[in-house]
């Protein structure tokens, strides 16, 4: 009975990660009185919300066989631009619209360079990552941009039905992208394109055109995260979002997507995001010595990989399964 359940669950989600997440949550709730409170749940959710939103776009990029390192920089540029537009009295709606357009166009530029130069997305987006953050420094000269109108603070600090607005936005976006990837013909191409772009091209799929879409989504979501950041802190600084891309990629991969493309889902990414959000909070709640944080964090990643491997073995009965797992097979 249990075995059957495990097998069934294991097909749909990263059971190892789920086990570690539930275990961590339980231990923390029992051991620390300040952990399982409504306030702390909000802090957990808001403490990783920018990464969570960006992880949705990154999931699509990674399934399609690409990678986007520029998102942290797009986040910071977007937070600064929306601030400057607001200060120039363009109005909230127009400022947000312009910022999202510029963010999206950086994604478009990424895709065009990858297509035209036939360069690896890692190199291209590494370039835009550096250049865009540099540009953020150039326009701010290292000083924070601040003093936005009150009405703008809703996007980062407001509540909808008692839930922080950014969390509501994330839930809606996650559901939308889940449905798009699962149930629309156009978006579900991503799995085929990611696992075998050559064959996809032969089947008449426009791989290059599809790439435009994936990188524009990724950059636009990063722009959204930047707008939320600016609104949350009523301030924008060229220091925002450093290393955010690494946290986002970790969330997507730990959720079970494959860096070699073709594998992954929004559901799994959401689990990865929830796990990392809880870990960051648990470290502080439990008072883990600050320099041990990364050791504890890394150990939990390894434990979840080992457990996932174990559950895969239980499901398939194939001992050498780790090879496929590590190389991204299923």
């Amino acid at each position, binding site marked *: 009975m*249990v*075995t059957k359940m*495990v097998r069934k669950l294991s097909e749909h989600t990263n059971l190892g990660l789920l*086990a*570690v997440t539930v*275990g*961590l949550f*339980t*231990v*923390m709730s029992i*051991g*620390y009185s*300040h952990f399982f*409170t409504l*306030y*702390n749940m909000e*802090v957990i959710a*808001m*403490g990783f919300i920018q990464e969570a939103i960006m992880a949705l776009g990154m999931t699509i990029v990674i399934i399609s066989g690409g990678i986007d390192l520029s998102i942290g920089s797009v986040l910071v540029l977007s937070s600064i631009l929306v601030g400057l537009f607001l200060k120039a009295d363009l109005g909230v709606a127009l400022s947000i619209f312009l910022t999202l357009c510029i963010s999206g166009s950086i994604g478009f530029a990424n895709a065009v360079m990858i297509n035209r130069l036939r360069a690896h997305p890692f190199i291209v987006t590494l370039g835009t990552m550096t250049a865009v953050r540099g540009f953020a420094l150039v326009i701010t*000269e290292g*000083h*924070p941009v*601040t003093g936005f109108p009150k009405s703008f603070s809703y996007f980062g*600090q407001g509540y909808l039905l008692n839930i922080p607005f950014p969390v509501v936005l994330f839930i809606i976006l996650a559901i939308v992208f889940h449905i798009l990837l699962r149930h629309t013909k156009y978006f579900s191409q991503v799995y085929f394109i990611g696992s075998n772009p050559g064959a996809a091209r032969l089947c008449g799929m426009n791989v290059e055109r599809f790439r435009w879409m994936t990188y524009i989504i990724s950059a636009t979501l990063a722009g959204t995260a930047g707008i939320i*950041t600016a609104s*949350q*802190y*009523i*301030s924008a*600084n060229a*220091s*925002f*979002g*450093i*290393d955010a891309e690494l946290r986002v990629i970790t969330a997507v991969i730990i959720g079970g997507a494959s860096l070699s493309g073709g594998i992954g889902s929004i559901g799994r990414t959401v689990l990865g995001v929830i796990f990392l959000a809880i870990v*960051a*909070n*648990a470290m*502080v*709640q*439990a*008072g*883990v*010595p*600050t*320099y*041990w944080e990364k050791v*504890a964090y890394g*150990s939990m990643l390894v*434990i979840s990989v080992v*457990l996932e491997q*174990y559950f895969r073995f*239980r499901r398939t009965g194939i001992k050498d399964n780790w090879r496929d797992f590590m190389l991204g097979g299923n």
Partner: protein
Amino acid sequence: MKGRAKSKLFSLVVSLVFTFMTLFSAASVYAEQTYGMVVFLKGSEFFNWSYGGMQDAAKLLGADIKTELRGPATWDASQEARAIEQLIAKGVDGIIVTAGDATTLNPAIDKAVAKGIPVITFDSDAPDSKRLSFAGTNNYEAGKVAGKAMVEWLNGEGEVGVSTFPGPNHLVERIRGFKDGLEGSNVKVVAECNDEGKVAAAEAAITAMLQAHPEIDAVFAAHGNPGPGAVAAVKNVGKEGEIEIMGFDFGMPVVEAIDKGQIRGTVGQNPYLMGYISMMMAWGANQETRVDGPHAPPSVNTGVRILTKDDIGVYKSPPAFVSGK
């Protein structure tokens, strides 16, 4: 086979739970009070000195006063804001924070204060927030101390060139204080050059300044970077040993140059005292004879001291700072 696998799964789950238990057991013994320090560039020597000061103050206050260090290893101020939020949720009794920029932390700091958690800023202030107080260097006073030391160095008579860059308010304050410190003597500032805040640019700018003003007897570096640049510049114009250099802070290049006798002294801030005083004020705000509200000083000057070859030793090998706990 099936039963075996089941018991294997069970033992796995049990060992997993134990892993977490041991990982976090250290802190499960409830401390009576916890104070958190939040920094940017976590791991940097300057803030380690501050955390050392905070730890020593906590030790003095009693065994049930715990401290912890949080914050990003980068200069991302938004990550600092997140760290403050996590500490609020944890229910700490006080937060001591150096603000990565002057505005980003305001909502988080205000939220903590609204929940009755005293917040003290140190080194870099968030002046528009509701923090109780700020412990750090008064830059005007620091400049004045430097100016008076310069008068002594030059025996009351000489010409000084200053290396700085336009923009930051703390530099403007330092130089204003420096000039006031020279008053009443025959030491004068004859030139100011723009080092753009960088070592390499400082070398070029100071070299040019020394060529244009061959009468200069001393160089005052208004911040950490131009000190080593001034050493190179003095070499460039072939006046080693003839021109006195006063640096700022005790970054490794400055310490080494002092040790070699290339820089005569540096204006040392006191990060240790910043952490120590902040801890005392945060703790004090929780006592019945409170120091918060109208009784909190808006800022506390932790002062500077001119460090020369004789007293630079301790900064060559800072005390071991291992676990951050």
